[in-house]
């Protein structure tokens, strides 16, 4: 199943399929290790719902929902 990272629920994990966007934001995501194939777990949301905190390549990364929305994720279907 494919969905964007901003739609994850807490504790959900998946593999990055594709990163959209352009320029500075996109490059920053790559540099921080959010490249296709990376394994991501959604750790928590900030008290006001945005930004979110994810675990990627062994460390904690925070990003805003609109930044997470450009990351398409491959999620294993449990059902």
């Amino acid at each position, binding site marked *: 199943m494919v969905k964007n990272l901003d739609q994850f629920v807490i504790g959900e994990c998946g593999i990055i399929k594709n990163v959209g966007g352009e320029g500075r934001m996109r490059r920053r995501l790559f540099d921080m290790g959010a490249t296709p194939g990376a394994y991501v777990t959604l750790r928590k949301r900030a008290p006001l719902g945005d930004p979110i905190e994810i675990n990627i390549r*062994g460390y904690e990364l925070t*990003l805003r929902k609109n*930044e997470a929305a450009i990351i398409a994720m491959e999620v294993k279907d449990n059902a």
Partner: protein
Amino acid sequence: MLKFALAGNPNCGKTTLFNGLTGSTAHVGNWPGVTVDKKEGVYKKMGKEAIAVVDLPGIYSLSPYTPEELITRQYILKERPDCVINVVDAMNLERNLYLTTQLMEMDVPLVVALNRMDEVEKSDARIDAAKLEEKFGIPVIEISALRNEGTDILMRRAYAACKKPRKGTTVLKDSAFAQLIHDTKTALEGVVDNPLFHAMKLIEMDPLEVELHPQCIRMIEAFKATFSDDTFGSDFEALIADSRYKYIAKDISSIFIRSEKNKEVYITKSDKADKVLTHKIWGIPIFLLILFTVFHMTFSEDLLYLGALGAIKEDFVTLEGTFYQGLFGSGGINSPGVILFNFLDMSMGGISDAVASAMEGVASEWIIGFVVQGVLGGLFAVLSFLPQILLLFLFFSILEDSGYMARAAFLLDRIFRRFGLSGRAFMPMIMGFGCSIPAMVNTRTLADANERTATIRVIPFFSCGAKLPILTAIAGGIVMQSGTGNADVITYSMYLLGIATAILSVLLMRNTTMKGEVAPFIMELPAYHTPQVKGLLLHLWDKAKHFVKKAFTIILLSTVIIWFISHFSWDWVYLPDEKIHLSILASIGQFIQPLFTPMGFGSQLNHLGWIFVVAAATGLIAKENVIATFGTLAATIGMGFVGDEEGIQAVVHMIAATGITVPALLAFIAFNMTTIPCFAAVAAAKAELEDKKKFRMTLLFWFATSYLVATMIYLIGSWWWTSFVFAAAAAAVAGVVAYMNKKKIVIRFKSHKKFVTSQKNLFGCARSCADCPGCNVSSQYEKSIK
């Protein structure tokens, strides 16, 4: 002298290593043109040869998007250090090595310092450094910067490495586009230094490189036209980043060998703290509590609430006249900040008195006045704030170093985004309530230049501690004189007015002159760490040095000038305090008095309007001078000398003598609160803004804002119906701004164009060569691959 540069990710322990290597020789400055710290020092333990060490800013990549990345890139390429020491956090190998794969591509001797080995051991993991060394082909040295272990070996290895020239190598030599890398590199050889690095950046379509080497773009475009990856197509930026990470990840588990059970233990330590500190419900209240504690420790005069609880009576022994009087306030025990302030204030007062009595009878009256009031008075007024400023710095560096500040930004980002700022802007703003100076310096943590400028501009609107006397004295005076109202309510509403002004200004700026998307908030949340005492002290020492240096130069000069024109008449006759009404400053005040008429303290006060103008001007030295000036001026208008202490009394005298109205007094408070801050804060703003033009515009902005706000208060307070006029004007401004943003109408000022790059590529043609019949560059390239 040999020059070694430290490069690495933020939070990798680079600064700890730097402090350990250079010790007291460290020197902090600015990189040219930007407000990013440049740290330099000397390593002296290499026999006879001293080695200069430069701490490059912490970065994740050599991409061209932040000033920190650009600095590192330019420094290594242009300044050519003899060796680059890449500090790598062993606890976070994967992401840290990503930068290593980029540094490797430069033609510069490189060694990897594998830091935090102590934590690796503690977590029962193991690192195969030899294997890592073999994999990357560069020396890897295990160190612990914290315990100062392995650092001398590191320097010896780096010293050995710097004697041998090194050619750049890439980890992508086995990839599907290795041929393209090789060809681009060959094309650039002889044209530029570091051909491999430039070739890699070109293939990534790095905007800086594309501009520099247009001759290679066609070749790359031609290759891309023939190339397609399953996942990435011909998106080389993604492909290269991914290939680097893939290369690193390939056998990382045989390099970082973790024992299952203990990895968990290590993570949960930081996690446990995070569970509480960024808790859904408790996160923000805890943040507010931490903030309150910081301010309470710095500014409170009733630290343990003994006074508020009634445990201490007002006439509690204050030990007046003894050495210990600084410890206690009028109704309680002082906070550390206030105690330090009192001791410094007392000793500086003692010095002033001693100097005055030593000069008594020896020097003429004006020289004594000049030395004691002008020079020492001005200096001490500024220096007496030093303890509280440093204490604020200390608390906030502890929060920053521990990793909590990143969490605070995480908690608050949502609120601030609404105004076009990121969560990081919160700290500097709230610090403004204490003192603008540390607040402005703290804006360095903001990523975006426009965001930083907008924040610096609104910091003075968060009314600082020194402005409180203006508020309480005038509010008290209003209540006393009119017999109605509540001084506390007036004070609080003025604070709120400041905040509202700040919010509106930011909104306006971010939608007009300081436009730009909110910088990405893609940020690491580092594991919590205990801050290093040595690092903190070095940091504080450095801040203190800067502040004292400024106090003795620009601030001293400004205060001496103000003293001079307020103590001399046009025909160079010295005037004691109580004759200030004959001074140059007073006559300037009389001359520009009409300018202040719209705010209610100008010409309508007849020949006395200048008093308020002069009081506001002396506030530039330190804001509490405003009320002190009232005290001295009371004498000149026949009310008797009141002295500095009786703030409210002086204001009452002023009201009686000048007949100033309540709206005008409120306008006067608002004017002082939002106008140009004290010279010390102005100096801080100048240091933090990148260029002179921005600085001048900032001064103008402060004056214009205060003028507008004060005028509005006076006019609406005097004639309520004018509020409709202002409301209509505000709506019109909002409407015009919204319309212009919608239609994308941009009014550009002349010098704004510097960084506008054209949409087309440098050949004036479309980016892809797929539909292009070909040109010289591409046909040559096609031949070469056949």
